[in-house]
């Protein structure tokens, strides 16, 4: 019950998750898992099947809305959160670039070229960071699909 509720309001993937809900989880000691059904099969199987059906029925009643789950998160302070996220990503890129350049200068004695070059590279990395965290960079296959399904509620 709790699980179904949680899944409905928090889970990113509405339909597909529910079907496998009770299948194999390492944790639930209180429930009849797939391992427990080895001994006396039919009753536990039946229980597991019915609990899965209940999960599915509950999820079907609940309108699949990953968007509304993210709403309280994105509402209100959306701009503030977004600004924190993007600016920290951007500044971190520049800071690391500058730090690396400074280190290279110190070690190799190439001052100021290492700092100049790596500051620019850090700038590029910062832009990449910011774009990536804004979800504007197309990533390779599976990662992309995952990022899309996760999309709005990650900040």
């Amino acid at each position, binding site marked *: 019950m*709790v*699980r179904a509720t*949680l*899944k409905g309001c*928090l*889970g*990113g*993937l509405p339909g597909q998750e529910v079907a496998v809900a009770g299948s194999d*989880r*390492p*944790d639930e*000691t*209180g*429930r009849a898992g797939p391992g427990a059904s080895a001994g006396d099969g039919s009753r536990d199987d039946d229980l597991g099947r019915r609990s899965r059906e209940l999960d599915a029925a509950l999820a079907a009643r609940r309108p699949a809305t990953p968007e509304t789950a993210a709403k*309280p*998160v994105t509402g*209100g*302070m959306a701009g503030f*959160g977004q600004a*924190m*996220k993007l600016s*920290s*990503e951007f*500044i*971190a*890129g520049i*800071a*690391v*670039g500058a730090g*690396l350049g400074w280190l290279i200068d110190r070690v190799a004695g190439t001052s100021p070229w290492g700092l100049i070059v*790596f500051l620019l*590279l*850090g700038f*590029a*990395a*910062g832009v*990449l*960071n910011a774009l*990536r965290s804004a979800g504007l960079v197309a*990533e*390779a296959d*599976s*990662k992309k699909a*995952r990022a899309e*399904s*996760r999309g709005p509620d*990650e*900040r």
Partner: protein
Amino acid sequence: MADDPISQFQISKLIPIEMGGLDFSFTNSSLFMAATVAVAGAFLYVTTSSRGLVPSRAQSLSEMSYEFVANMLRDVAGAAGMRFFPMVFSLFLFILVANMLGMFPYFFTVTAQIIVTLALAGLVFSTVVIYGFWKHGLKFLGLFVPQGVPAILVPLVVVIEVISFLSRPISHSVRLFAVMLAGHIALKVFAGFIVSLGSLGALGMGISILPLFMVVALTGLEFLMSFIQAYVFAILTCMYLNDALHPSH
């Protein structure tokens, strides 16, 4: 009580300890970190002690937090990510409880210290690097080479990707730190307005209603931010761990 908004973040030594010239004092920060661990541990221990098949209200709360983190980790990093569940769950609970404890008046906010958040982010970062190299060897470096990039551009892109990778612990930690710091300073500043307006006589008392409403609203917002930041920290941890588990770009 000091009335400037920064003094709430001051570290004070409770039990001065000095070992070999290094300062190991037990500070108010250490006290609240210990309190955070104690509260989080006690919460899980007490709520799961009865272990009913039909969970009580408290037990379902801790089960919900478990399921919340487990689902997040499974969604982001796949089933293989579950081996990192203890770490992600501990991080999430530690940050959440520390943020919530910080919301008590006169309490110290551990997560508004950059060194604490940086240590947490450094833990995640070193886990990703060590596990990535241990599991995948040099193939882990494939993380830095995106597919479909012209050969001429590869060195440049790799350098940028490496810098981007190295900047992760910084942005990871600064975000949590900055949000907590800014929120607590804003709360304190608006609360200060109430006091200073209140000392201006009857008219000031009337106007000081406005910052009072603001403080009430900000407090609610801070509670929301406390949760969101713990969630964000945990989900970013999951995403970084996903890179360690599946480094192929």
